[in-house]
């Protein structure tokens, strides 16, 4: 059970250097981690219509929508630095990017308020009722 003792430190000071990055949730699993020419082949072909964005990705039509982070919350992309050799050592992550909104994409179906990721954004608000202490705290968190 030794791995229960290892903790993962979050270098918060790195948030100052973190760049705002456009973040897209894509409705397919891409078997790759690492660089890709996203702006050249994806972002550049997005069509922005009144209520929805559309894009063609690998021949499939995607429909997307922008989604803001809940109030009082920040989007962070955490990245591990200096991976340790064993699972007993502490790990460290830094904030590599920040975002205040993300774009999620559906395959074919138009985005709507019942999409699960939209509903997921309700979670922080609900979590504060379910699992925090009191209103005072809630205000403190939102500040």
């Amino acid at each position, binding site marked *: *059970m030794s*791995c*229960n*003792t*290892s*903790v*993962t*430190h*979050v*270098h*918060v000071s790195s*948030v100052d250097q973190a760049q705002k*990055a*456009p*973040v*897209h*949730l*894509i409705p*397919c*699993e*891409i*078997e790759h*981690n*690492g*660089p*890709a*020419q*996203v*702006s050249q082949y994806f972002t550049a072909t997005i069509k922005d219509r009144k209520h929805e964005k559309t894009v063609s990705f690998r021949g499939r039509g995607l429909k997307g929508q922008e989604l803001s*982070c*809940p109030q*009082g*919350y*920040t989007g*962070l*992309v*955490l*990245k*591990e630095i200096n*991976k340790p050799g064993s699972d007993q050592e502490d*790990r460290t992550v830094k*904030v*590599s990017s920040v975002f205040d909104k993300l774009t999620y994409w559906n395959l074919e179906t138009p985005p709507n308020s019942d999409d*699960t*990721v939209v*509903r*997921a954004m*309700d*979670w*922080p*608000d*609900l*979590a*504060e*009722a*379910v*699992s*925090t*202490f009191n209103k005072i705290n809630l205000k403190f*968190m939102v500040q």
Partner: protein
Amino acid sequence: MATKKRRTPNIQSDSWVVIAAGSVIDSQMHDSNPAFVRLRNPSTDEASLYMLGSCDEQLYEVKAFDEDFHSWFVGQTVQRDGRLLFVTPMDPLYLILPYLIKSGKEGKFQPVDQVVMDEEFPACCRLLRCTRSLASLHHIAEEKEVGGLKFHRYSEEKTMNWLQKKVERTVVALKKRNISVGEGVKSTTYVRVKSESDYCEEDYLRYAHGLISEYISEDLSKALLRHLQLPELTSPKETEPPSKKRKLSDKPVEAGEDYTKFNSADFARKPPKKMTAAQKTLAKVDKTGMKPMSSFFSPKVKVEKK
């Protein structure tokens, strides 16, 4: 003819997309970093991932929103792991409670720092450093002060009242957010077919009870149901509260697993079976010790009305 494609195991992932309470990164006043730690999940009794804020002031829970077949584009990079992690503040009393209950069986008043100890999860003593932990122990325990020292003994009565308040607050939040809680929720579509007024108070109470049950033991969950004067639902399959459904979603929790290794080979995805959207959501397996959000999305239980 479609050929079955073998998925390569995802072992290289070293980044995570997170939505975190602003207080997590508000480091202005502090010089110590927040940290992800493993602590005993009061509901499953297994390891789950939590976060302790700077100087341990605040406990956060970590939940993974996970839909099959999703990946991220972050700037000019691809991140295969399509999960979205939520880091939200959490009342440390939930995690302290099981230790008090355990020691309460001896019936003695004890110093709380001798009670909240765990060989398996040494970080648990840090829970007592959270700003409100010590000051709010009286919600779940009787207090005695002798010679400037405080001693505590678990009180079920107090705990029930404390949990009832949580349920009531959750009901308010559910109504405010217009979250579907009734049987009208069609599990396959999530379409909100009923307006708020169509749900009865019991639907809300049961839903809230289900959410809170994610944070307490099964025994306590049952006791809370009685305390709320909600009859236990009879037919086991159809009428289990959302809390029970986590059994389904949490089954293969490999909580002891280091969370950075969550996609190692043994987690290679199985070929997808035909599932409804709801089943998919329920089947989200927490492979990492992070709690899935499935209970929140689970279709509400049919309440038998007689």
